[in-house]
């Protein structure tokens, strides 16, 4: 099959899957099968492209011009491939998980849920495959809109409030900052295509360049740089599978992916460090401040949300250092964090489904009744902290090496400090769960599909530690 067909399939499969899911409204088992089949198909299509991309091919598909000189175009390159693999692969896993969760909690509107889920993946894949800023922006906004029904799934006043914050902050950042940034780039560079080496080289410098970078960094609100981060905890009103895939994987990853893409392909790695000097400070502040909030949060999902905010800024920090090693670390962290965080959210959802507990303080002894869940949680925690044998160790290693190479002591200090903070808010949970006496608990493990999913992602976290070849190769080919 030609590249064009394969790329078109990457978008057609999740979109078509969404339509089929909606049609299978009356037959829940068929509907779930369609979801999973679409996920599997998408992953296989993306996987089939990976060899060629690793060897230097850049499959492309051009749809036609939306504006004179600006086309809707897809182009697959290593970073996009990584994101697409993560999104499609984890779609399948979280599909399995969602089935267990939605049925275990007897949630309403399941068809709408699974259909919007598929559309959200389509949006994420669109972002991954985007060949220019306009296409990226198109799918980025589509992702925001399509995830709104997922965030407000429960339809009550709380969901409405959370949905408002979610939408308001994401649209505010993208319309107020990202859109002008794109227009300025177009005016300066004459193109919005992602070009190795960047578009803006030599066209803007100094304070103006720093300003433009700020517009991008704050404009890509999905990367949750403070103060645009508030949408993430607000989105926790969503059911946990939504939080798991979208806010640990797809939506937030679209954010940091876009930032890395802008750094590498719009500014270019040789752009000049003065414009980037301020960004590590903002990212560093986000890392530490978010960790402190996480430390003090009792609601488990809230703690995980702020942990995500913090971990995303690792990627931004590493990318902002502009050294080859730190960039590899940033890309690896996109993958490592995805596997680790999704495990943590899966575990949180399992705890809610089986034990109906949402607060950390309620978790005493729960681990003994849900050993698999909390073992997986422990592995996810290790990845967040950055200890072997979890994937987070690999990415952190590269980030620290990059910080040393750049002699950026603040970045180094922030990474070290936040490692300790991560330990501070994750390890106690594991300790409480296994080693403290709980109240008389009568529940068991979560439904099988949920446990299967979280064990799989925990395993992936460990697998990535031992075998990081693919992500490493993709990251290195960016340089």
């Amino acid at each position, binding site marked *: 099959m030609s590249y064009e067909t394969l790329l078109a399939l990457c978008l057609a499969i999740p979109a078509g899957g969404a339509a089929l899911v909606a049609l299978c409204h009356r037959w829940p088992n068929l509907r779930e099968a369609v979801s999973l089949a679409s996920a599997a198909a998408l992953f296989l299509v993306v996987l089939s492209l990976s060899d060629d991309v690793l060897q230097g091919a850049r499959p492309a598909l051009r749809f036609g*011009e*939306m504006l*004179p000189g600006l086309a809707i175009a897809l182009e697959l390159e290593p970073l996009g491939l990584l994101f697409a693999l993560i999104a499609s692969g984890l779609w399948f896993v979280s599909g399995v998980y969602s089935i267990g969760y939605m049925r275990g909690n007897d949630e309403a509107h399941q068809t709408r849920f699974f259909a919007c889920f598929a559309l959200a993946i389509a949006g994420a894949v669109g972002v991954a495959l985007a060949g220019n800023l306009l296409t990226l922006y*198109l799918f980025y*906004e589509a992702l925001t809109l399509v995830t709104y029904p997922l965030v407000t799934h429960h339809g009550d006043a709380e969901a409405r409030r959370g949905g*408002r914050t979610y939408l308001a902050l994401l*649209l505010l950042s993208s*319309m107020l900052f990202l859109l002008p940034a794109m227009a300025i780039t*177009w005016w300066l560079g004459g193109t919005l295509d992602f070009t190795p080496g960047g578009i803006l080289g030599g066209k803007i410098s100094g304070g103006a360049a720093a300003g433009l970078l700020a517009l991008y960094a704050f404009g890509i609100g999905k990367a949750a740089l403070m103060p645009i981060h508030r949408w993430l905890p607000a989105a926790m009103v969503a059911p946990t599978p939504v939080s798991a895939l979208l806010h640990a994987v797809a939506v937030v990853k679209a954010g940091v992916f876009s930032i890395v893409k802008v750094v590498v392909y719009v500014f270019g790695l040789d752009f000049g460090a003065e414009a980037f000097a301020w960004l590590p400070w903002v990212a560093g502040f986000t890392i530490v401040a978010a960790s402190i909030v996480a430390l003090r949060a009792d609601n488990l999902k809230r703690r995980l949300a702020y942990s995500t905010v913090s971990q995303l800024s690792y990627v931004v920090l590493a990318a902002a250092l502009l050294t080859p090693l730190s960039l590899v670390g940033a890309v690896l962290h996109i993958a490592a964090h995805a596997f680790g965080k999704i495990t943590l959210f899966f575990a949180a959802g399992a705890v809610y489904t089986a034990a109906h507990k949402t607060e950390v303080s309620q978790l005493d002894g729960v681990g003994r009744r849900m050993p698999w869940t909390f073992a997986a949680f422990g592995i996810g925690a290790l990845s967040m902290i950055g200890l072997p044998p979890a994937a987070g160790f690999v990415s952190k290693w590269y980030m620290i090496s990059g910080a040393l190479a750049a002699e950026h002591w603040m970045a180094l200090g922030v990474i070290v400090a936040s490692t300790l903070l991560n330990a501070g808010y994750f390890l106690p949970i594991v300790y409480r769960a296994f080693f403290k006496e709980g109240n008389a608990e009568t529940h068991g493990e979560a439904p099988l599909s949920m446990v299967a999913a979280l064990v799989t992602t925990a395993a992936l976290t460990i697998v990535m530690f031992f075998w990081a070849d693919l992500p490493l190769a993709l990251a290195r080919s960016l340089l």
Partner: protein
Amino acid sequence: MLEQLPALQVVLPLLAAPLIVLVGRGGFGWAAATAVSWACLAVAIGLALRVAEVGVISYALGSWPPPWGIEYRVDALSAFVLVLVSLVAAIAAPYARRSVAAEIERDRHYLFYAMYCLCLAGLLGMVITGDAFNLFVFLEISSLATYVLIALGPQRKALVASFQYLLLGTVGATFYVIGVGLLYLKTGTLNLADMAERLRAVEELRPVLAALAFITVGLGLKLALFPLHAWLPNAYAYSPSMVSAFVAATGTKVSIYALLRYYFTVFDPAPLFETLPTRELFIALSVAAMVIASLVAVFERDVKRLFAYSSVAQVGYITLGLGVDNLDSLTGSIVHLLNHGVTKGAIFLLLGGVALKSGAVSMSIGSLSGLGRRMPLTAFGLVIAGLSLIGIPGTAGFITKWYLIVGAIEFGLWWLVAVIVATSLIAVAYVWRVVEAAYLGEGGEAPAKTGEAPLGMLVPALAMTALCVYFGFDTSFSVGGAREAAELLLRGTR
């Protein structure tokens, strides 16, 4: 036959009106109105294609040569607006059947359709004519017909709204005529192209200045330029649904066309604009419109008034492009004539379907509660059209925003870029009120009838909504036509 196309554009609806009155039956009236609307669309497309080949079509009415006779002149800008007006008419006319049947008494239907044909004739005539006074005549034809159409609304408030519009609209037309009179006194001709030539040689500029002022205010009243917009919210809110859609999509747009024609074609040669702060004035008024009207819309409870205020804000976007006055922003202005036309048209057509089903005469946000469940297609259509109003990529509204932003950047007007995107955010606020009510509302004021609007109304409404998305992706006609028109306007003598 083909050479007579420019005349046919106006003659067809103009003859249909008395025919409908003579036959005196509502069914025939609707059929004739629809047939004429579709015929006008065909003629407009034919003219546009011809203009694409030859550049300018000049048609002498009655074979009297210009500048003594009245000339119909079609160039890139006129062709663009002709297609816009007739496209909206072609979609709104089939829609009218069920909508009008539900909102107006039976024995008045044929009068409604006759007025509609007159309004269409007036609007098309305004665009196609190349004679200043002829423009006034068509302006008044369309306006008088519009006053009647609005007054046919179901509530008694429609009468007051129509009267208010009559007063202000006639003042506007009168000011326009005063302006034309002063120009005639100075140049001795009424033909727009000829006037432009003669203005070049005029020495005494004060009458020309006065004419510019009168024409600006006159047309400004008609196009609801802030602060001359007071008639618009009531007129749109209380008129019958089909009229709201048709007038919102076309009425102000044609007056804006007239303003563009005067500023760039007629007044351009006169050495006026160097000393006048027209740019600053238009930018200031446009920004005021964009910000203030959007904010009012956020707090408005009646749904139709909410979108009426949104129209005032959107007209601000169009005049903003006029104020910034470079190729990109002017392209944005002209393309927004089309983009806003289909967006607002779609919204009002969809709301008409909701009104029909709910049976109520006025719609508050609360009455939209639970729309997502009762009328899923209509609600979805409202979301899409709402997104186009906000300017999300993939919809027509984004195209406009892009050009306005790029135009502002080109002149280094950074604060203006911020204003443009900030007002889009305010649009998010009022659009999302509607979306939230439709999907997250508790269904408090649930109406008697459930189910979608009848197909005769739903299909045109959704077709218009589909155009919002279509023009967001395929801009070959919209941007291509707009860019050509903008280039034509700017080429002038500047």
